């Protein structure tokens, strides 16, 4: 009845990290599900996956790869992003992380073993994001999967929130100078890329450093992950992608991406969907508007061939977690295999970490989620989590 995840770090004595997990169904994600299969874990890696197998040290109804959330939102809020300028591409979310936050353990408990950490969306271009494990020693070195995994930006109302044009007075704060509308936000975006292409203003070392990052985006080395909630934001982001030839664009929090099938298909963007809500509506929170996310949005993207990931945005309660989003997507008509992929392999691929995480294959990190029934169903629950071979949620404890 009580589930205490406190002693995560010292879950088991060292040397006890070799496991054979036997499950009625092994969902490898990379291949077909294996009935009555096993996963063997050695030295923090997956040693073997196959059918049958004996000598199980852990048993469960189903095993899946550890879940991946690209919009976990564990940041230090406004302190994670430098707001004294609209663009801060050179700065990294790694400088603003709180790895001691209890919210990492909450994520781990809900099956999320890998997450993208990004600056909060108070700037137009907020800075670099990094991929981390959600558990382990609370140091960057211990948890890092990929530093500089993406560049984070935001289109829409949020980056212009709180800014204003001064009346009857001199501008006193940098909030006055920043964009106040969606038009202004888009302008800042375009200016950043335009100046990068022109090499303008690079006498200033900060600008030069910003441009160096933007060049990596333009070269396709870094994906650009952009918050684009409303239809107009989705369209703006895609127009920018096409205008500047940004090879890898991911639309985050894309509530209304489903309204633009042709643009999505044409531009080759990927999408991160926000959590589903009871009435489909998402209030903007910054302007007086709300956007609509139908239950079948994921099914639509799937059918159109648009790569997409699901996210829980740090939902904590029952019915609000990442696995619950995958269940909701199935209610909207998404097949189980696609739902599973949207919380494992697809997000891994979007950030280029699929060689380490995202599926159950020999050689990958032993990040596993153990279920007491068919995965991603409301009648099932996560009863065990392995993170790099360490049992951080023990299915045997009551």
């Amino acid at each position, binding site marked *: *009845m*009580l*589930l*205490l*995840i*406190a002693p995560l770090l010292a879950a088991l004595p060292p040397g006890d990290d070799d496991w054979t997990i036997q499950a009625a169904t092994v969902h490898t994600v990379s291949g077909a599900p294996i009935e009555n299969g096993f996963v063997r874990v050695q030295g923090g890696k997956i040693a073997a996956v196959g059918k049958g197998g004996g000598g199980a040290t852990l048993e469960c109804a189903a095993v899946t790869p550890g879940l991946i959330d690209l*919009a976990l*939102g564990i940041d230090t809020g406004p302190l994670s992003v430098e707001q004294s300028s609209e663009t801060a591409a050179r700065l990294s979310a790694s400088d603003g992380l709180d790895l001691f936050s*209890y919210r990492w*353990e*909450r994520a781990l*408990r809900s099956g999320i073993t890998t997450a993208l950490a990004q600056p909060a969306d108070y700037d137009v271009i907020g800075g670099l994001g990094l991929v981390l494990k959600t558990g382990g020693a609370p140091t960057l070195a211990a948890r890092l999967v990929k530093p500089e995994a993406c560049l984070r930006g935001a289109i829409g109302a949020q980056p212009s929130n709180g800014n204003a044009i001064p009346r009857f007075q001199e501008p006193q704060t940098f909030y006055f100078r920043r964009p106040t509308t969606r038009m202004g936000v888009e302008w800042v975006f375009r200016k950043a890329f335009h100046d990068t292409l022109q090499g303008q203003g690079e006498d200033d070392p900060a600008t030069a450093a910003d441009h160096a990052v933007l060049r990596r985006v333009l070269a396709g080395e870094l994906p650009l992950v952009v918050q684009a909630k409303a239809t107009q934001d989705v369209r703006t982001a895609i127009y920018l992608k096409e205008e500047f030839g940004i090879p890898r664009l991911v639309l985050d929090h894309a509530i209304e991406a*489903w*309204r633009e099938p042709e643009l999505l298909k044409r531009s080759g963007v990927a999408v991160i969907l926000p*959590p589903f*809500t*009871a*009435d*489909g*509506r*998402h*209030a903007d*929170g910054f302007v*007086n508007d*709300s956007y*609509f996310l*139908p*239950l*079948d*949005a994921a099914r639509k993207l799937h059918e159109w061939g648009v790569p997409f990931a699901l996210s829980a*945005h*740090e*939902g*904590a*309660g*029952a*019915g*609000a977690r990442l696995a619950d989003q995958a*269940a*909701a997507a*199935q*209610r*909207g008509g998404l097949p189980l295999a696609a739902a599973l992929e949207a919380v494992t392999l697809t997000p891994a691929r979007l950030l280029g970490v699929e060689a380490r995480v995202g599926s159950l294959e020999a050689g990958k990190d032993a990040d596993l989620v153990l279920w*007491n*029934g068919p995965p991603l*169903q*409301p*009648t*099932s*629950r996560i009863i065990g989590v392995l993170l790099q071979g360490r049992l951080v949620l023990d299915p045997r404890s009551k």
Partner: protein
Amino acid sequence: MKRLLAPALLLAALLAAPLPAQQGGRLVIEAGRIVTQAGPDIENGRIVIDGGRITAVGKAEEVEKPWDATVIGGKAFVAFPGFVEAHTSQGMDRANENIDVAPFLDIRDSIDPVAYFFEDCLRQGITTINVQQGANCVVGGRGMVVRPIGMTVEEMAMRPLFGLKLSTRPKGGKSRATQMQALRFAFEDLRLYLEGLVEKERDDAGYAKREALFQGRDLEAEAAQGRAMGGTAWKVDGLELVPRGALDERYAPLLELLEGRYTAFVHCGDPLDVVHALEVVRAQGILARTVLVIEQDCWKAADRIAEAGVPVILEGALLDVQRDPITGEEVETFVPKVLQEKGIRFALSSEDPNTRAPAYQAALAIAHGMERTAALDAVTRVPAEILGLGDEVGSLERGKLGNVLLCSGDPLSVTTWVEHVVIEGRLVYERAKDVRNKHLLEGVQPLGTAPPTSAEAGEDPEHEHEKADEDAGAEKDAGDEQKGKDEDKEKEDGGR
């Protein structure tokens, strides 16, 4: 108001049109599987409803199909009893009254038959709903059990004047001490009032008698009524002298509560509220007719609840997530599991928007280790029993009301939909014709069917009034302010 009514009328028209069997007619429901919640499931079953009640349930080959009955369903469907909502404060004009002690209020005056909530209930398969005043009170008004159909409250009503709301959770602006003081004083005030009545009666000895004789009424019968007055915990000497009709209607309902006429629904926000609630209902002698409406935190008082033997309705989240203030670690507790282990009878409720659908709540309970039948009972049989409707709803049995859901599959599967809803033998909902569901599912929005805003959904009716009356300047400002607050709330709820 126009914006609200148009879709509601549209839906009502859609739903009203196809009624194949009006009440009194016969309806046959066929299903590949019938989950009766009163014994084993029936494969290839048939349900016959006549005059609003189930007259037969069984295997298709064993149940005769009346020749004149309309037949719905088929092998692809799973039949299931309509869900029972044990307690809600939705579907009404403002849920809370600012008078602390207001047992004289009747929820009948607040229920809004065209509220989005009732429409959504049909979509989720909820066919019986106990509507009670909100928890922001000391003693609230009397509630009502309704079915989510009908254009008037009378059409909806199953049990008018049902239940009385009390709360030990401090009302807004009150401390715990003043809340408890106000609650105790409500009963003390009643006693003082009754004593005053008796005193007056004694001073005016003979007046009532003379008046009755003059009016030609049967004084003895009235006196007998008077003698029956009073609860079990305390009595007022000489109350038998007072004719029942002399009671002020402001006080009468509270006395009726003590006499056992109403079930007391006592809202508890945290474990301490549970302790206080039990203390109060024991002191007033109404423990046997008490139901605690609890938030998730109250599981900590489970031993006290079990000891008192009262049933509970879990209104908060199913999963209680709390942070230890010292260590900073989070502890999760699945509340229904605790209640079950302590042997407490409990019903789940749909107040938490994340887990609104009763089927979904039952599914979560199963995920956390509850038996399937017990989990489903918590949204069917148990709430029916708590409402005293155990013989009417909550399972598919001969003699009970014909409230049946036809689902596209197992009611607990995430891909299952409620396809048809039958209430008392009337087909009142068909998913194929539910345009709003099509919108929620696919984003296709036929003109005039946008989901209502939170204001229109009944959460903020003040705003609604203001919209209808654009000229009321001051009121409009107040409304805008309220709207801003709502948006803030949504922002919080909606996360980042």
